[in-house]
């Protein structure tokens, strides 16, 4: 190569590097804004339409719920200043705030409450909240700030549902003016942030709602980049292109957490990893079910896949939630497992065989846990065939009563209420339940209509214990949420895993 050509190339390279380097986007934070790498988008900006646990923090940034949960998951006033469930569970009286405005400046009224929970549902729109509020007969407006939900059947968990998925208040007048499609394109709520830009599956830009009725967020502008690939989320937070991300592999949390500018967290949340069971086929024998349960080393699973942060469970309720049974433990006991199998005529030479369904990638380490379980069971002479299913297929198989003997699943319940754990998972009339036997199904059905809170919770605690002892369900671990953030970024940690931009601030 000639000297002149070489010099030309060097000059060109230097100029190029200057242009690229100098104009490269700045990723540093300015104290007023935050960039988050979030694993999934909202299904649409109609918050009543689709239930999706991971979308709740996004919805909660834009919309408010009648009742709120604090970081310890207590139910606290939000748009509702007070509420009271009637003794028979057939009505719920409530009062609303009078200082709430939507993002377009119009005040929130009782009409908006009635529209969200009653009129939209009654109109026959295909909304997920329609199933939640199917017992709702009407919302009677008593005054500009008070009213009553009227149910046609006892609805003891109405307050919990008013703080749960899909229960976000939308503006009646605006929605009627722009239509549902128009609303999805230009949504407004009463929440702490307005949407200033949305590009599906890519980014959401929030700006602070300056007339917000509640605690004013410290961060003015929040950019949420939808980054589905876990490796890309890790890279984004490591390179400083995002200040916070969630749901990254545990080993990456440990690695990134060791870096000086980053903090890594593995937080237990109100999500339960369990085996959903059938009561028939190879599992019509209680000894077999219990042997299967005794052969599971939950502590080892937690250590291997969640760095020991996932709490082993003996009932389908995480510690700190109302349905948890303090002091009850279902032991890991290989000898007991062998005894139970022998009592039913099984041994390593004559093994019991069944199939277990699992997803691969629906929740962290699901497939790895399934494979570890198969190995654990192999130690006591249980032979298991793994069947990997798509998450979308899970509901279909469960509804059609076509799941195999066991299914590894993760059940999310931000409210922590036992009805939405045990109630849903063991109510034979619901499509979530793989267990279709009369017991403990009948008792669960009774609890669905039990209006007294104390009686209801005590009932669920007993059902939880009995369900484990009879092998109707096999709780494994309290799930964890992994999170990595810039060391200077603070946020409020919620027991149910919500990561809310409104709770963030810079040190």
């Amino acid at each position: 190569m000639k000297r002149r050509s070489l010099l030309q190339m060097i000059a060109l390279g230097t100029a190029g590097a200057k242009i690229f380097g100098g104009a490269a986007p700045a990723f540093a934070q300015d104290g007023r804004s935050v960039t988050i790498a979030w694993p999934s988008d909202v299904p649409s900006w109609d918050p009543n339409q689709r239930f999706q646990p991971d979308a709740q923090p996004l919805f909660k940034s834009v919309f408010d719920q009648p009742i709120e949960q604090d970081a310890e998951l207590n139910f606290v006033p939000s748009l509702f200043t007070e509420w009271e469930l009637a003794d028979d569970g057939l009505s719920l009286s409530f009062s609303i705030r009078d200082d709430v405005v939507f993002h377009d400046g119009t005040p929130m009224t009782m009409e908006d409450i009635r529209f969200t929970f009653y009129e939209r549902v009654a109109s026959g729109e295909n909304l997920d909240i329609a199933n939640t509020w199917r017992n709702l007969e009407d919302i009677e407006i008593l005054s500009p700030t008070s009213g009553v939900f009227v149910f046609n059947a006892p609805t003891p968990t109405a307050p919990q549902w008013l703080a749960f998925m899909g229960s976000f208040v939308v503006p009646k007048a605006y929605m009627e003016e722009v239509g549902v499609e128009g609303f999805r394109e230009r949504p407004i709520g009463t929440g702490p942030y307005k949407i200033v830009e949305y590009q599906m599956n890519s980014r959401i830009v929030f700006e602070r709602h300056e007339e917000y009725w509640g605690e004013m967020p410290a961060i003015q502008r929040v950019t949420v980049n939808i980054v589905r690939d876990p490796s890309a989320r890790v890279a984004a937070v490591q390179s400083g292109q995002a200040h916070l991300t969630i749901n990254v592999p545990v080993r990456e949390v440990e690695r990134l957490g060791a870096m000086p500018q980053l903090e890594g967290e593995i937080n237990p949340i109100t999500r339960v990893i369990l085996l959903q069971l059938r009561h028939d086929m190879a599992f019509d024998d209680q000894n077999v079910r219990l042997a299967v349960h005794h052969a599971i080393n939950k502590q080892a699973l937690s250590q291997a896949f969640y760095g020991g942060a996932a709490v082993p469970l003996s009932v389908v309720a995480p510690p700190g939630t109302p349905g948890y049974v303090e002091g009850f433990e279902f032991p890991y006991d290989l000898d007991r497992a062998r005894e139970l199998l022998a009592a039913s005529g099984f041994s390593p030479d004559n093994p019991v065989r069944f199939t277990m369904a699992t997803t691969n990638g629906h929740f962290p380490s699901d497939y790895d846990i399934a494979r570890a379980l198969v190995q654990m069971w192999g130690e006591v002479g249980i032979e298991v065939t793994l069947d990997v299913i798509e998450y979308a297929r899970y509901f279909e198989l469960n509804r059609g009563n076509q799941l195999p003997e066991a299914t590894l699943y993760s059940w999310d319940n931000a409210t922590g209420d036992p009805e939405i754990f045990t109630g849903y998972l063991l109510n034979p009339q619901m499509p979530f339940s793989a267990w279709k036997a009369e017991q403990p199904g009948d008792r669960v059905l009774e609890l669905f209509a039990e209006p007294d809170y104390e009686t209801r919770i005590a009932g669920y605690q007993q059902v939880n214990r009995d369900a484990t002892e009879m092998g109707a369900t096999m709780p494994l671990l309290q799930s964890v949420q992994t999170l990595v953030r810039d060391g200077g970024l603070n946020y409020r940690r919620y027991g149910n895993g919500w990561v809310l931009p409104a709770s963030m601030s810079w040190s």
Partner: protein
Amino acid sequence: MTATIAKLVMRRFLVAIPTLLFVSILLFVVLRILPVDPAAMSVPPNATLAEIERMREQMGLHLPIPQQYLIWLGDLLRGDFGTSTHFRTGVAGLVATTLPATIELAVMGMILGGGLGLCGGLLIFYFRDTRTEAALDVGTIAVLSLPDFLWALFLMLVFGVVWQILPFTGRLSPDLDRPVVTGFLLLDTLITGQPKTFVNALYHMILPAMALGISAAPPIIRVLRSSLLDTYQEDFIHQARLRGLSERRILLRHGLKNAILPTLSLMGVQFGFLFGGTLLVEIIFSYPGMGNLMVDAIRNTDLPIIQTVGLTYCVMVLLVSITVDSLYLILNPKLRAR
């Protein structure tokens, strides 16, 4: 010449109709025989079996598959692409929103891949019968053996994490607002007169486009080289040498001009592959295109979206193929004479 090209385009459009019909039948039938229930996917999780059955009837899923197909095709011809079972909104709107980003990315990928391929082909030919050629040859094989999503992760790691000079999430930096006119971001930034946003968008496009383009380059390199080797056997190359032209001039003015035609055909085919490759690259780089939508649809068994996106890919490949054929005709006088 214009009449000849118009005739060819017309003929290719006519041939495209049965191709599209065949693809639509294939897509529809394959998706219908999969063990999934679109009705179950379009109702709330706590819906009863009776409600699912009602939904099944509403969606016409109880009808025989040929009848379902004809209804779907009829709707399609009327411009009704159906309603997404997951997003519960019109599929046409979703595809229209995401298609520009994918086209933009694929075109940029093709420009980078085509550029790399052409430069690489010329370089490897220039160094023919030397050790440099052998080394470059090994390099192209190595590049070819890595799929585009691995390139995506590699580029992200090197340029995004280690050197931190290029962004790799989304299309714009957090402090910039996205102009919306046509949906083609680069174009929109120019229309609205935002040069800073244009440059920023271009930066965001470099890594995903490179991930797509790198995989497209090696076949172009190889075809261009072998095409150049063939061309160099022709008499006009010897005559050019006898006229005293420099080797560089012969290569660029005479060799490349004649060898480019097969390469152009290949680039058309490559564009089709590249378009399909956007699926994973869009996921990795958070790119809001049709590939991202397709992955969403597959995850949620959203058949109306899968069908429409599948057909859109087919239409895009056919359009590119027609364009390449037209270019071929423009560049090759022998074909026009036939």
